[in-house]
Each structure stands twice: as C-alpha cells, then as structure tokens.
C-alpha cells in the first residue's frame, strides 16, 4: 500500500506541475493573440478557421471584430489597432455565408462590441447554403459559440502546438508577417476565361461561389443591418475590375447584389463603405492574387487607412465611398453605368 501512496503522490505532483506549466506557457505566449496582437505571427492572427479560436476571440477583450470571408485574412488586426487604438480581433471564416457572418455579428453585439463586416457578393449567394458541408459548418460554429470555455481557452492541444511552433519560429527569426509579405510579392497573373470558369458566374460549375446566384432574403439582410450602430462598419471589399463586368453580364448578379446593398444601407445605422466598381484599386492587376479573387494585404491596409483617416487629403489615393441613404442610388447608377461601358 505504501508503494501505491508513494507513486500516487508523484503522479499527482507531476500532473499538476505539468498542467500549470503548459497553461502558463500558452497564456504567456498567447499565439492566437487573445490578449495581445503585438508580436504575434500573422498566420495565427488571421489565417486559421477554427471554431474554438473564434469563440475564444469573441470572449476576449476587444473593440472591433473583423467578420468576413477569405478577404478578411488579408487584413492585419494589428494595423487596425495602430490606426484606431482599439483592440481588434479577426474572426473571419473562409468562404463564409451571410448566415455565418450574421451569427458572428450577433455574438459580437450580444457582448456589446463592434464589428467590421465584409459584405461580399459571394457571401450573399444563398444557393451555397444548400450544401451539407456548409450547413454542417454553420451548426459547428453555432454550437461552439454557445460555450464559454474558461479553462480550455489556454489549455487545449491546438494552442499548445501553436505555442511551440511560435517559439520555434521566433528562434528561427521568422518574420511575423511572412505570409502577407509573400502575398504582396506574388505575381499577379490570371485570365478572364479562368476567372469566369472558376468563379461559377456562368453557372457552369457545381459548388462554385456564383453558381445559380440567388441573393438572401431582404428579411435576413434587414436583420443584419439592424445589428449595426454608428460604431460598426460594413465594407464592400474590392475585386479585380473585370469581375464586375462579369457580374453585370451574367445571371443579373450585379442588380441582385445591389438590391441587397440597398436593403443594408437603408436599414442600418452603421457606416457602409464601398470599394465596388472601377476605381484605382480594382483596375490595377497588381493589387490582386488568386484569379483576382483576393486583394493583396498591402491593399487591405490602404482600405483601412482610407476608412479611418480623418484627413483624406493626406492619402495618396482614394477609391472608397461612404454610402448613405442620400448618395446610394446615384452611386449605384454611376458605378453600374461605368461597368457597363467597360464590358
């Protein structure tokens, strides 16, 4: 019996010592930036889609929460913190639907925080919602968001692996924003044919983002719009300009999307910034990668400089428009006719 007592003591001591060590290590390194974004690798801050990380971020101290799809992965929350002085977390989900984004925006508002929301054309395609994979993902995120795991936040296998990776990368002197730098330097080369086929605007491809484009109901968009108040921001991020010509030409995507934008702007108190249409950003091929689908991270930074700067004269370019109920119709007519001209 004494031998069991002896080893039991050892077992419990070893267990608690290791448990506390791992917990402290994860808390201090904080690879996902739950407490501090400074000194963290951009990959960990923006690039993963993990429900438990999203949940932990929403439940961490913060002011702005970046909600959107893969375009939001090109936004460094630390840059926004530098511009605004406000704690910012990125909770984007690659390929997110309006349902998922609205669910996240609701979670943010429940906690009296603010969102910066990417109101993207493809996220507005209701047709994507029919796929089991997407339905399943929505329910996974919903279930996750219903738990506030206090202990598991800094004690799970994922954060422990990330912490160790973080330490190894630091030892190897890896640049914190390596992935964003690589994307900025990546060659921009893609053809219109590729873009048409892969995006699904021709409705020729099952599960492509724009196949059978049907916009979500006004009721749903209205619900999203009502969530925003004056400190929240909706952004219509830029795509490579030829996309807009495709949207105008096929499936009436442009008008369907504009109708969603109308519902949004007319029913929200939040700011709505649009970078849609032909402008300095969208017409420059070198601003885009991945078939013109994603803008480069350097463009993301400029977009937020434009949104948050109070003196627009200091900017070297201006391409976004703050949409209001009064300028909305003229803006939509103008960009639509500009796109029509370039078709």
């Amino acid at each position: 019996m004494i031998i069991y007592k002896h080893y039991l003591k050892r077992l419990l001591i070893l267990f608690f010592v290791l448990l506390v060590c791992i917990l402290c290590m994860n808390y201090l390194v904080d690879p996902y930036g739950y407490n501090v974004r400074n000194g963290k690798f951009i990959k960990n801050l923006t690039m993963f889609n993990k429900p438990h990380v999203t949940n932990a971020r929403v439940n961490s101290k913060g002011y702005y929460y970046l909600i959107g799809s893969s375009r939001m992965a090109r936004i460094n929350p630390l840059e926004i913190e530098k511009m605004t002085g406000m704690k910012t977390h990125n909770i984007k989900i690659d390929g997110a639907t309006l349902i998922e984004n609205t669910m996240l925006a609701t979670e943010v508002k429940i906690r009296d925080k603010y969102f910066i929301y990417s109101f993207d054309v493809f996220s507005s395609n209701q047709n994507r919602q029919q796929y089991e994979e997407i339905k399943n993902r929505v329910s996974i995120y919903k279930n996750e968001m219903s738990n506030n795991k206090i202990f598991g936040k800094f004690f799970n296998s994922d954060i422990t692996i990330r912490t160790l990776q973080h330490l190894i990368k630091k030892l190897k002197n890896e640049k914190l924003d390596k992935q964003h730098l690589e994307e900025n330097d990546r060659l921009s080369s893609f053809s219109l044919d590729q873009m048409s086929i892969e995006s699904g605007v021709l409705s020729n491809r099952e599960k492509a983002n724009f196949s059978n484009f049907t916009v979500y109901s006004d009721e749903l968009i209205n619900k999203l719009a009502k969530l925003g108040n004056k400190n929240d921001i909706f952004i219509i991020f830029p795509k490579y300009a030829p996309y807009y010509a495709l949207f105008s030409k096929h499936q009436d995507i442009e008008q369907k999307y504009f109708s969603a934008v109308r519902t949004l702007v007319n029913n929200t108190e939040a700011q709505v910034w649009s970078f849609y249409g032909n402008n300095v950003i969208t017409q420059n091929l070198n601003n885009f990668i991945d078939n013109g689908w994603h803008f480069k991270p350097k463009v993301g930074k400029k977009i937020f400089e434009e949104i948050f700067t109070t003196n627009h004269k200091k900017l070297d370019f201006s391409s976004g428009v703050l949409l209001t109920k009064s300028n909305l119709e003229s803006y939509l007519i103008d960009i639509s006719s500009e796109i029509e001209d370039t078709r």
Partner: protein
Amino acid sequence: MLFNSYEFILAFLPLTFSLYFYLNRLKLIQGAQVFLALASLFFYSWWNIEYLPLIVFSVIINYQISHLINKLSIKKALLVFGVIFNLLLLGYFKYSDFFLQNINLAYDTKYSLLYLTLPLAISFFTFQQIAFLVDSFRGYVKRTSFLNYFVFVTFFPQLIAGPIVHHKEMMPQFLIKKNKFFNFKNIYLGLFIFSIGLFKKTIIADTFAIWATNGFDILSHLNLIEAWVTSLSYTFQLYFDFSGYTDMALGAALLFNIKLPKNFNSPYKSTNIRDFWKNWHLTLSRFLRDYIYIPLGGNKNGNVKMYNNLFITFLIGGLWHGAAWTFIFWGALHGLAIILFRLWCKTGIVLNNVLAWFITFNFINISWIFFRAENWEDALKVIKGMFGFSGVLFPSFLNKIPFLANNNAIFGEVFSNFNGDTEILLWLFGALCLCLCFKNSNQLLISQKPNNKAIIFIVFLLLISLMNLDKNADFIYFNF
C-alpha cells in the same frame, strides 16, 4: 454531466471523492451514503433537471415493489406489476413515437407524435431494476435499506451508460467497512484506467467520429474507399467510445473502492460471432441471457426452440438500443449470425483463424452500419458504396498500373470529401493494431504495478486527453 468534461474531471469528481471520504472519516457512514446519492443525482441532472423526478420515482416504486414481494404472498402478481411498470415507463418515453409512426404507416392514420426527450439512462436503470425485481421474486435478494438500494441504482459512475450492474455484485460493496476509507491502491488503479478511458474517448473515438459523421450524415454519395473509411471509422469509434466510457466508469468507481464488472474484453479479436458476444458489452449480454433467453426456455426444449429463443433475445437486444427498424434489423442480423454459427459448428469444419477473424470482423463492421445509420437510405448509401455500386475511384498514383488504366478505371483525389485527410488510413491501421495486437485496458489493469514509467504514461494520457476536451462530444451510449 459528461466524464470527458472539465467540470467533471476538475470539479465534480475530486470534490465528491474528497467529501465522501471526509464524511466517512468523521464516522458519518450514513451521511456519506446520502451525500453520494445526492451527488449522483446532481451529476444526473446537470444536463436536464426535468427528468430527475422520474428516476427518483422509478427507484422508490421499484424498491417498494421488491419490499412487498419479500413480504406478501402475491409475489407473482407483484412481479408482473413491477415489470409492466418498468416496461411502460421505458416504452412511453423511448418507444411511443416509434409505435405511433408504425401505426400511422400501417393504418394510414395521422396520430401526432409526442416528440418526448429520452430521459438520460432510462434503458440502463430500467434493466437494472427489472433484474432486481426478478431476483427478489426468486428469493435471491436479501433485505436491504432504501438508501443502499438508491445508491446501487444511482451511483454516478455507472448511472448513465452502464455497465448494467447486478445488485449481487454491487450492494454488498457499499456495506463493506474497509471500503469507506482511502485505499491508495484503488485510487492509483482508478486513475490508471480512467486515464486510458479518457484517452480512448477524446483522442481516438472523437477523431473517428469526424469521418464517420462525414460519411453517414453529410456526404450524399460515397465511392468505394470513402464507404469503407466511413464504416470502419464508425466500427472503431463505437468501440473506443463505449469501452472508453466503461474504463472511465470503472476508474471513477474504483476511486470509491467499488469494483464495477468489466464490459469489454477485446471483442474485435473474436474469430466467431459467439466469441464476439462473449466479449462485447458483457453486462448487457449477461442481462439478456439471464432475464430473457433463459426465462424463454434457453436451450432446454430442443434446437428449433433454442434458435427461436436466441433470435428473439437478439431482436429485443436490438430494440433495447433504439426505437427504429434499423436497430431491430441489426439485432436480427446478429441473431441469425449466432444461429448460423451454431449450425456451422455442427458440420465440424474448422476455419483457419485468420479467415474466421476476417469474416467475423467484416460481419460486425457491416452490421454496425444499420446500428449507426439514421435511416435505411443512409445505411444503403454506405453498403452500396462498400460494394462498388456507387463508383470506384482509385488513388492517382495507381494510374501507372496498366490493368487499371486499360480498363477505364477512374483516378483522382480519393479523400477529397474527407478534407484530403490521407492520415485516415494511418488512424485505421493504428486502431486495428490497438484492437488486435495489444492487451486491453482490463488486462493492463490487472498487471499494473506502480513505477516511474507507469506514472509518466498516466500523466501523458491525462494531459493529452484534457487538452482535447474542448470537443466535448457526447458518448454514443448516452442515447440508448
């Protein structure tokens, strides 16, 4: 409350353990038992307090009936009343919608379904109490206090998903004086087997659960390899989930100096279906044998009657698992397999061990599909895929094999619908090795001697498992 949750491992279990032994140390033996009963009810109602009165009511009624059986001469009438009471309770909550659905289907009626939430553990505590009543009638039960009976039924380690304990093996343990005090050996061994169970559940079963769920519930179409991955994933998920749960139950009970019966004994090593049932969910097999098969007549009235009794027992076993025709079909498959095996034995032909294992394992694997599928369509989807009726996609690297290339074989990314997880194959191979080539947790427990290696092993399992608790997945047998 789930065994695989922070609240159980870091709060409920240590607190209950400490207070229970503290009360015993103060010589408050009854107080400690009352505390254990209350703690078990707290554990039971953590999810849904709504069904707490039901279990308490069921325990009180069953105790009273058993008391009257011992006292009065109308023993048989009381037993029948008691069994009907238990079956009605189980039937109302578990089978009423199934019954109504079938009535509606057969007679084209439109009775609305009740959509009742299944009270947690009802199948387990019902069987446990029926056994108690039957044994009271047979005169096998000594008079016992209500408190002792209450703790026997509600003792939290076995309450939710078994093992289905027998009063003969449990009640005396609660009365043994030396069980009221710390036993370092039992605590050590309890932690040892608990950590193995936790690891089985959180690391192995929950990993397979992702692929099984993907194949059964999400994908609408499975090619040959995907279908096999789906069915095998579930075969391993179920074993590691349920045997993991049982290990944790055994471990938690051992902390309180209570030895629960073992429930698994390397069932996937079996080389015939009879062996499988001797090693899978042993306490259910024991219950079905003692309280259904033998009362039906067992093997006493000739072969035909015996086969009939076996088949009925397995049908009931299937129905016990769930109110659906797929469960009944699963039970029927196993009943037929047992009968076929008995007939085969009579021929005197002995199969090679590897071949016998292969046939047994594949039968079990295929039959689990009906156990898991939500409906016939899902089951057929997997079966069709496994036999190549939904297309065969070969991995791209095989396109160099002329035979395949010349016969219009289709090549591609085999695991694209499983997020490209080629590691699935490694997991399947690893799980099979664990099932076939290693000692099971009960064998490890018997041979366990404390040393530094062992404590590192336990701490490793505990920490790795704790780090993966965030999935917080239910145990499969919670649904039954």
